[in-house]
C-alpha cells in the first residue's frame, strides 16, 4: 500500500518523525502541565507566579499563567518552536535533496507532471504535520485532563493546529529557498537562521515597548496571537488564516518556480542580485594556491566555515540579545523579589539557581546556549557520517593519509569551530553587557559562554562514535533523540522535583549555572573526559571498520 503513490511513499518516509516529534513534544506538554499544581498551591504562590511571569515575557505572553493551560502556553513559549526544525529539514530535502541524489530525474521520468509530483510530496509533508499536531494535541489534552485543566479537546486540537500552521510556514520558506540553492543544507541552514531571527523579532515587542510593528513582520507573532489552551483568551482565526495564507503563498511560489526551472539547477536570479562571475581561463586554473586545500584539517575547516558563521551569528547574537532583554526587565524583577521571599524558590524552579538578579535571570536564558551548540554539533556529526556513507571519504582514504589522521583532522576542525563559537559568544555578551550597562561578573560570564564548548564536543564525539556502526539517518536520529531527552529532563525535571540521580542523566546538568556560581570545574572536566573517551572509541572503530556506502 505504501508504495502505490508518491504521496504514500513520502508519508512512509516520515513515519518515525511523526511519532518521534508528535509523542516527544506531546510529552513535554504533558509534563509541563504536571508542574502547575505545586506552583499555585497557595494564593501567595499564585500571585508571585503571575508577577514573575511578567518578567519572563520575552519567552511568551504571560496570560492566565496560574491556570494549567496558561502556564503550559507560557512555559513552553519559544521552546515549542523546536518542532519547526522538522518541516524545515523535510521541505529543504523534499525536492532539492532528491535532485542532489539524482533520484528526482527518475521520478520525473514517470508519466506524471512535475506539479503533480511536487504536490504529492508537499501533501505528504502537510499530512505528516497534521498527524504530529494531532498527537501533540491529544497528549496535551490527556495532560490537561489529568491535572484539571479548564480547556476542552477542541481547544487542544486548535493548539495542535496553530503549531502545525507555524511549522507549515517554516517548511514553506525552506521549500522556497531550496529553489535558489544548490544544496538542501544551505536552504535548511538559512531557514533555521530565519527561524531564530523571527523568534527574536516576535520577542522584541514583549521586551521593548512600542515595537509591535516590528514584531508583526514575524510569522511567530501570529502564532502567539492564539492561545487555545487559555479559554479566556482563545484562538484568533485571523492569525490562523495569516499563517495558512503565508504557507500557501510561499509553497505556491516554490512550486511555480520548480515547474519552470531546470531540474538540478537553481532559479536564475536577476543580474543585479548575482555575484560577479570570476572568469578563470582553464590553463590558468592551476595551481589554485588556496590555504584550504593544503591538508584534511584545512579542507575540513573550510567546509565548516559557512555553517559556523551562521551558527555563531545565531548563538552569539541570541546570547547578546538575552543580555539586552535582562537589562530591560532588571528593575521590574528587583521590585518583585524584594516583595516576595517565595520568588526565590520559584525562580529556582523556573530557571535554576538563587536570586542574583541579572545573573540569575540570564542563567535561566543561557540554558539555551549549550542546547544550540549541541544542535550545531549534531549537524556536523551528521556531515561526517554522510560523507562516509555517500563515498566522499573513499578517495581521501586512498591517499597516504592514515585513517586516524583523517578523523582527527575532521574533529579538530569541528573543535576549532566550536571554540570560535564559544569565544565569539563571550565577546558578544561582554559587549552587550558593556553597551547596555548590565552588571555581570566577567569571570562567570566567561565560564557560562566557554563551558558550552565541552558539551558541543561531547555531542560531536558521540556522533562520531555512533557513526562507526550506524547509518547516517539513524546516527543523526539517535543524537537528536538524546539531545531532546536531555533537554526534556533538564527542562521539566526540576519543576517536577525529580531526584538528582535522574537529573544527572542529562548532559545539561553538568553545565550547571556558571553565570551564578562560576565554572563547575569537576563537571566540565568530566564532560570533557567523556567526550575524549567517546572520541578514542570512535577512532578505534574508524581505523578498523569497512569504509562503506
Amino acid at each position, binding site marked *: 500500500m505504501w508504495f502505490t503513490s508518491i504521496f504514500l511513499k513520502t508519508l512512509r518516509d516520515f513515519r518515525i518523525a511523526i511519532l518521534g516529534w508528535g509523542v516527544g513534544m506531546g510529552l513535554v506538554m504533558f509534563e509541563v502541565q504536571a508542574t502547575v499544581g505545586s506552583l499555585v498551591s497557595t494564593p501567595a504562590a499564585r500571585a508571585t507566579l503571575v508577577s514573575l511571569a511578567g518578567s519572563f515575557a520575552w519567552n511568551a505572553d504571560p496570560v492566565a499563567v496560574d491556570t494549567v493551560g496558561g502556564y503550559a502556553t507560557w512555559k513552553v513559549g519559544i521552546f515549542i518552536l523546536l518542532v519547526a526544525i522538522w518541516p524545515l529539514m523535510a521541505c529543504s530535502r523534499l525536492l532539492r535533496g532528491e535532485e542532489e541524489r539524482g533520484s528526482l530525474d527518475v521520478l520525473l521520468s514517470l508519466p506524471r507532471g512535475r506539479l503533480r509530483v511536487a504536490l504529492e510530496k508537499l501533501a505528504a509533508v502537510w499530512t505528516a504535520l497534521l498527524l504530529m499536531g494531532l498527537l501533540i494535541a491529544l497528549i496535551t489534552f490527556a495532560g490537561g485532563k489529568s491535572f484539571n485543566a479548564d480547556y476542552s479537546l477542541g481547544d487542544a486540537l486548535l493548539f495542535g493546529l496553530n503549531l502545525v500552521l507555524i511549522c507549515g510556514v517554516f517548511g514553506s520558506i525552506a521549500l522556497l529557498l531550496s529553489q535558489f540553492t544548490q*544544496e538542501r543544507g544551505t536552504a535548511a541552514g538559512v531557514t533555521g537562521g530565519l527561524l531564530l531571527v523571527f523568534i527574536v523579532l516576535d520577542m522584541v515587542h514583549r521586551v521593548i515597548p512600542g515595537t509591535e510593528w516590528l514584531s508583526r513582520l514575524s510569522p511567530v507573532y501570529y502564532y502567539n496571537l492564539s492561545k487555545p489552551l487559555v479559554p479566556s483568551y482563545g484562538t484568533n482565526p485571523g492569525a490562523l488564516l495569516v499563517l495558512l495564507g503565508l504557507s500557501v503563498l510561499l509553497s505556491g511560489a516554490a512550486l511555480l518556480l520548480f515547474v519552470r526551472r531546470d531540474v538540478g539547477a537553481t532559479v536564475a536570479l536577476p543580474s543585479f542580485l548575482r555575484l560577479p562571475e570570476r572568469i578563470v*581561463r582553464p590553463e590558468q586554473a*592551476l595551481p589554485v594556491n588556496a590555504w584550504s586545500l593544503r591538508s584534511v584539517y584545512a579542507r575540513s575547516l573550510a567546509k565548516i566555515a559557512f555553517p559556523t558563521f551562521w551558527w555563531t551569528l545565531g548563538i552569539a547574537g541570541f546570547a547578546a540579545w538575552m543580555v539586552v532583554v535582562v537589562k530591560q526587565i532588571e528593575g521590574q524583577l528587583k521590585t518583585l523579589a524584594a516583595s516576595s521571599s517565595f520568588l526565590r524558590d520559584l525562580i529556582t524552579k523556573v530557571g535554576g539557581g538563587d536570586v542574583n538578579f541579572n545573573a540569575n535571570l540570564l542563567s535561566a536564558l543561557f540554558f539555551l546556549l549549550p542546547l544550540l551548540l549541541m544542535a550545531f554539533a549534531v549537524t556536523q556529526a551528521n556531515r561526517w557520517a554522510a560523507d562516509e556513507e555517500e563515498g566522499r571519504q573513499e578517495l581521501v582514504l*586512498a591517499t*597516504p593519509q*592514515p585513517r586516524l589522521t583523517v578523523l582527527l583532522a575532521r574533529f579538530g576542525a569541528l573543535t576549532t569551530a566550536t571554540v570560535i563559537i564559544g569565544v565569539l559568544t563571550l565577546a558578544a555578551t561582554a559587549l552587550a553587557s558593556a553597551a547596555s550597562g548590565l552588571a555581570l561578573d566577567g569571570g562567570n560570564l566567561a565560564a557560562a559562554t566557554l563551558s558550552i564548548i565541552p558539551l558541543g564536543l561531547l555531542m560531536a564525539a558521540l556522533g562520531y562514535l555512533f557513526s562507526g556502526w550506524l547509518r547516517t539517518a539513524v546516527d543523526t536520529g539517535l543524537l537528536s533523540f538524546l539531545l531532546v531527552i536531555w533537554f526534556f529532563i533538564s527542562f521539566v525535571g526540576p519543576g517536577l522535583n525529580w531526584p538528582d540521580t535522574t537529573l544527572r542523566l542529562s548532559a545539561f546538568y553538568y553545565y550547571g549555572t556558571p553565570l551564578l556560581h562560576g565554572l563547575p570545574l569537576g563537571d566540565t572536566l568530566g564532560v570533557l573526559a567523556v567526550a575524549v573517551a567517546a572520541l578514542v572509541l570512535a577512532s578505534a572503530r574508524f581505523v578498523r*571498520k*569497512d*569504509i562503506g556506502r
Partner: protein
Amino acid sequence: MTAIIEVEGLTKSYGSKRGITNVSFRVEEGEVFGFLGPNGAGKTTTIRLLMALLRADAGTARIAGLDCWQHSVEIKRLVGYLPGEPALDPGLTGGQILEYFGHLRGGVDQTYLKQLIKRLDLDPTRKFRQYSSGNKRKVVLIQAFMHRPRLLILDEPTNGLDPLNQQEFDRMVKEVRDEGRTVFLSSHILSEVEQTCTRAGIIREGQLVRVGGIAELKDIKRYEITITFANAVPAEAFKTLDGVAQVETLADGHTLRLTMQGEADAVIKAAAQHAVVTLTSHEPSLEDIFLRYYEGDGEALKEASHVVH
C-alpha cells in the same frame, strides 16, 4: 618478473550477503591486468580490499610485498586509485580537487598534471557538481594518474567516457606499461580488456573462475549474427557450419539468430545463397556470455579448475 599484487584465499562477506570467496591471483610488475566480471560479481569488493577500504574476513592481499591492511599508508604512496562511483565535494572545482589530492599525496608534478588535463580535455574551472558524468570520471582519472604511481588500480575506468577519451585513456595505459609500471583494471566489457590488457581474471558470484593471458580467454568470446531473409530459411542449413554454436529461428521464420564462436566466413557464404534483407552482428555483454556459457551446465565449476595462479 616479480609480483606486485599477491592475493591468496581472500574472502569477504557482508553479513549474510556474499562478497568474495577464496580469491587468489597474482599480478606481475609491469603488466596490465584486467579483472572481468558481470555486475555484482565481486570486482569492486576485491579492489576495495586491496585499497584497505574493507577488511578481509580471511586470506591475504599484498602489494609490493606489503600487507594491504597492515601497511595501507605505505601502499597508498605507490598506488593511484580510481573508484567505481567517484563521489567528491560538489562545491569544489576540478582544479581545486586535483590540487587538494596533490597536497594529500605530498605534491605532484604540475607540468605533468597540466598535460593530463589537456590530454583528457578537462575544464578544471567548473565545479564538480556541474560536470557531466564523463567529465567527473576524467577528474578522478587524472587524480589517479597525476603522481605517476607504480601501480594503478582502476575500477571500471572508462565508464562514461566518450570514444575519443577512451582512446586517450588506452594510450595513457600503454604509456604506463611502457614505463614498466602496472595497471590493474576492472571491467565488465570484454573487448575493452581484450584491447588494453595483457592478462585477465574472470570473477563470477564472488569466485575467480579463470585467470590467464588474453589469448587463452578468447575461447569464451562469443557474438551473435542476426540474419533476416526474404523467404523462410531452415535453421538446419546453418547448424553444422564452422563457428556456429547455436541457431535460433525467430517468430516470423524469416530471421535466424546465430550464436558464433570463431570465424564467420562459413556463415556469410551460406547466407549469400539466399536473398538477405538485413544482417547484423553484435557482441553480447559479458553477462550474456556468463548466462549462456557458464550457467546450468556445470561449466563454471569445470572452468574454476583451470585457474592459473
